[in-house]
């Protein structure tokens, strides 16, 4: 009888192990392509001792360099960004982050206020698949799912990805258990240049009012920060596209005033920051390149340091050693990108498109 029970237990364990291995194999690796898919999980392996946490979409993970904030101001920061991160995803990521650490400041990019309902499964996956299982993740999934999606496939992604068996590449085996780090505390580096030549006019809207769902989550975010004695800073990053309407900006100005929050529209301050849209963007204005992100971070670091009194921690030996290593990796990647750009004309192994073939000065 005892032997029978043991055999049954072994059989179940074996089955679970096989399922786990299959799941690890079939899940997209986000290393050679769509590198943004790796951003969420990179936080878990990092030191969780940050004074500033950024949350939001590509306008945070492409436009701010934590290494510059460290080198210029001694500010420790991490960007918990992901592609088209919706506001409820930002909220739940923040809620999860506060379980690991308590920053002085949280910075939220407000572009996602424009999305009041879930948009696209593929983007949901980039944020949710690699979140660790927690109540925050469960609530995030529930808030994010499209009508035709199943909750269980987010908990057991094998249910979603099993039929990738015919599309597996060497990457799927190579990065099954260990993946190289692709970001710098959540910052996705690009050194190439594609100048802004056109800023498309925004399509006329019937209603410029942000949706109630967006406001509800912004309220929750504000409340969560206040309860934890954290300064919440609202920003609009200096991206020229998607179009940021004056009517949207006015709503954020009003919200910030009513809730005693700071709001910075860095798009309006681009000249003051020193951003040159001929040289500081890699995709014609949607995202800043390394040069632009460093200018942006240099400018914002001063605000964080002087107005929000975020401490300079460069005199802490342990912290300095950790950030020195991060900076080494940052400059190694910068060199490698410049080399690749010179050799191929575009960032071949960094997810760039062939069209982006202008080089940084």
């Amino acid at each position, binding site marked *: 009888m005892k032997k029978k029970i043991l055999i049954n237990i072994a*059989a179940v364990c074996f089955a679970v192990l096989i399922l786990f291995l299959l799941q690890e194999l079939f899940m997209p690796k986000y290393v050679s392509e*769509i590198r943004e898919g790796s951003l969420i999980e990179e936080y878990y392996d990092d030191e969780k001792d940050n004074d500033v946490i950024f949350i939001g979409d590509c306008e945070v993970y492409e436009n701010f360099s934590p290494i510059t904030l460290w080198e210029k101001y001694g500010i420790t920061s991490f960007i918990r960004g992901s592609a088209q991160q919706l506001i409820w995803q930002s909220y739940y990521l923040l809620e999860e982050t506060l379980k690991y650490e308590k920053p002085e400041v949280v910075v939220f990019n407000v572009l996602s206020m424009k999305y009041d309902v879930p948009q696209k499964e593929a983007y949901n996956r980039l944020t949710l698949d690699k979140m660790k299982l927690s109540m925050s993740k469960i609530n995030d999934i529930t808030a994010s799912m499209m009508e035709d999606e199943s909750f269980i496939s987010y908990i057991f992604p094998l249910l979603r990805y099993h039929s990738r068996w015919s*599309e597996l590449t060497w990457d799927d085996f190579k990065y099954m258990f260990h993946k190289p780090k692709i970001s710098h505390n959540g910052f996705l580096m690009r050194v190439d240049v594609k100048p802004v030549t*056109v800023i498309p006019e925004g399509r006329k809207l019937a209603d410029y009012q942000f949706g109630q769902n967006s406001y509800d989550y912004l309220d929750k975010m504000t409340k969560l920060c206040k309860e934890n004695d954290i300064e919440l800073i609202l920003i609009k990053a200096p991206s020229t596209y998607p179009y940021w309407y004056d009517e949207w900006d006015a709503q954020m100005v009003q919200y910030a005033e009513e809730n005693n929050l700071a709001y910075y529209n860095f798009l309006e301050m681009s000249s003051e920051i020193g951003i040159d849209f001929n040289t500081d963007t890699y995709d014609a204005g*949607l995202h800043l390149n390394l040069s632009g992100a460093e200018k942006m971070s240099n400018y914002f670091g001063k605000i964080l340091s002087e107005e929000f009194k975020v401490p300079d921690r460069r005199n802490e030996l342990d912290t300095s050693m950790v950030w020195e290593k991060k900076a080494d990796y940052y400059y190694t990647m910068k060199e490698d990108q410049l080399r690749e750009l010179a050799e191929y004309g575009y960032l071949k192994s960094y997810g760039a498109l062939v069209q982006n073939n202008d080089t940084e000065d």
Partner: protein
Amino acid sequence: MKRFVVIIAVMLLLVGCGNTDKDDQGDNAGNNNSQESNDNQDDSADADKEGYKFTINDVTVPMNVKADSILEALGEPLESFEAPSCAFQGMDKIYNYGSYEVNTYPNEGTDIISAVDLKDDTVATEEGIYIGSTLAEVIEAYGEAESSENGLYTYTLGDSKLTLIIKNDVVEAITYLAVVEGL
């Protein structure tokens, strides 16, 4: 041994039941903005395709069809803009022809028509509605709208939508849209 075989068989059965009707991966799903659009990209079928179409200078622009031959027929735009998505491969593109704009999205390496915006009253829909038409004229041309919240009048036909912003009974904006998840 039998137990192992049964468990593996059940596992594979369960795994096989999940979501087989969708794209197979979140990553590559991103390259496939729509499943439905795949079926609608045959050039020969474009003209007869059910849906709202914009016609200008004898060039018909349906939604969710390959863009290359249409853009060639429309000629050189005044300006164009390419917008890479946050994460996925390919570019959303906007071609500005002055009085109208044509938008495309990438799908498996091919640009597909995603929208046409009418910008002024020198161009009109096939049913004769232009910026400045009255609400009564719109209803006469298209019937009652499916929705008209906040002055946004929406009509759906096939995998296309026609949206009109109507304020004070006057059309202020006209847009043809492809019905595609996430656009």
